[in-house]
């Protein structure tokens, strides 16, 4: 190109122009990714400002949510979001671990790929499908067969009994947690499986060589080695559960209250927004819902950022071992 440049300076400068144009275009697109996150944060803050300025800190600590008197507090939604996500992880973590162990250590080669793909497909199913399935299939089953049994069996117990009292509605906090768990199981198991696969075979083989059983290899070599990645994967799942909207909206019942019973209807931040935003009248109502969104953004951003940092660390660790 140097000789060409000497002969045809015009053409060479055209090339340089295209080079810098293309380079600028890719850089601008990359910067747009940054701008998106900034834009989201900024627009939520601006939208939430009227509500936050009006209610001040009480917005976070009040349970009342009354569109008629225009009194709004986020406590019930925050409580519901945290409780459903916590319970969902409680159900999902053991199952996800089982699946990850099965896929990395146990499954014969011919079974590994189809089962792995099936689990990944479960993660591709849109959340609204989980919601409609939860409402029409899972909730009636829980209402008829599981909740009466929980109420009779656990309701009278001291302390934890309070969690299982009241009529079996079918929908409610427990059902929402269950649907959420089914949603995050494929997600967490896929990440944990990938993390397990970063463990070098030499490490595992030396443990087997010392006479360890498969379970001992997993619990004493694989899990400790991959610990940061495993926690990162779980937190990604938590981020997903916290922000999940449609699956929860169908089955939670949208009741703004902090109830002690897991069988009672409740609400989450995302379910409140999904249910009420399009119909919200009045600036304060809309702004309060946006403020809920800003809270959700803050919570999930923290969780996801921490998770990504942990996974990043694992990436470096894996690289330094190569």
């Amino acid at each position, binding site marked *: *190109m*140097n000789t060409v440049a000497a002969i045809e300076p015009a053409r060479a400068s055209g090339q*340089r122009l*295209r*080079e810098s144009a*293309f*380079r600028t275009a*890719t850089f601008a*697109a*990359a910067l*747009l*990714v*940054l701008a*998106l*996150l900034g834009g*989201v944060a900024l*627009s*939520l803050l601006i*939208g939430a400002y009227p509500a936050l300025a009006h209610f001040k800190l009480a917005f976070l600590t009040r349970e009342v949510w009354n569109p008629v008197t225009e009194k709004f507090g986020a406590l019930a939604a925050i409580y519901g979001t945290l409780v459903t996500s916590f319970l969902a992880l409680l159900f999902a973590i053991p*199952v996800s*671990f*089982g*699946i990850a*162990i*099965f896929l990395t250590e*146990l*499954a014969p080669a011919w079974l590994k790929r189809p*089962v792995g*793909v*099936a689990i*990944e*497909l*479960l993660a591709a199913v*849109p*959340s*609204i*499908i*989980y919601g*409609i*399935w939860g409402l*029409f299939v899972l909730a009636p089953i829980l209402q008829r067969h599981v909740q009466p049994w929980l109420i009779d069996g656990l309701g009278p117990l001291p302390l934890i009994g309070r969690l299982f009292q009241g009529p079996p509605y079918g929908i409610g906090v427990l059902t929402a947690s269950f649907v959420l768990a089914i949603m995050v199981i494929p997600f967490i198991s896929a990440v944990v499986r990938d993390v397990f696969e970063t463990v070098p075979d030499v490490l595992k083989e030396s443990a087997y060589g010392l006479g360890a*059983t*498969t379970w001992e290899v997993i*619990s004493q070599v694989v899990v400790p080695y991959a610990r940061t990645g495993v926690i990162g994967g779980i937190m*990604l799942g938590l981020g997903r559960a916290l*922000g999940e*909207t449609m699956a929860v*909206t*169908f089955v939670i019942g949208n009741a703004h209250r902090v109830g002690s019973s897991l069988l009672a209807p409740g609400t989450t931040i*995302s379910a409140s*927004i*999904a249910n009420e935003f399009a119909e919200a009248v009045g600036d304060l109502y809309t702004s309060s819902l946006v403020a809920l969104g800003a809270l*959700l*953004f803050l919570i*999930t*951003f923290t969780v*996801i*950022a921490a*998770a*990504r940092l942990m996974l990043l660390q694992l990436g470096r660790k894996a690289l330094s071992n190569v």
Partner: protein
Amino acid sequence: MSRRALRKLINLLALGLSGIATAVGLFFLGAILWTLVHSGLGGMSLQLFTAMTPPPGGTGGLLNAIYGSVAMTVIGILIGGPIGVLAGTYLAEYGRSARISTVIRFVNDVLLSAPSIIVGLFVYELLVVRMGHFSALAGAVALAILAIPVTVRTTEDMLNLVPQGMKDASTAMGAYHWRTITSVIYPAARSGILTGLLLAVARISGETAPLLFTALNNQFWSSNLLAPIANLPVVIFQFALSPYPNWQQLAWSGALIITVSILILSIAARFAVSSLGTGGRS
């Protein structure tokens, strides 16, 4: 000896439980698919694809909703796809080791798992409030924003798979970097990039939450991008929660259509990836 037997027992128990866990996971996939087919197939008819969404109790189909979903997904990927591919190109080529790339990668990963309802709120503040009404365009922009992180990620990964030797060969011929990228690297990574776009389409075509207050819904046929538009996810949401049997039936049929389309897209993307693996080596 008894200690050994105990260890073996624990091993058997733990592995048995992990097998059961896998069976549980697969059971739910089966249960959901079975419910969808069982409840959705009954409503499958030609009318579903030729008639508009009906009033309560009337007969009708989902044509306007299917059209709206396809239109918004296509516009979404037409906006989000090129931006994602360009940004991925920057991360993999021009800015591979730049400090800002580390930040962009991290932010992109965060956006990848950010709740989609937040994106809906963002676009509401950005477009719906300014325009004064809900619109198909706002819905498409929300979907585009969701498509960008997926595309950035897959594009960067796929471009990194292109052998350095090919890039060096092109540079040695005197090609400028943009020429190397567009004439050598893109063709070599084509099926990988297309896979990323397919995955992005699969991701956005089932999204409901960001459409609830951007595109809203429309009982009637509309092809006006500046007006509210019907779309499958929101129709499913509204019809499933309605007390009318004909609406609920349509919701199930819509759910079946959307799930089958997404599963086909995901499986197609997987095949494209595995064919890339063999194609890259030859």
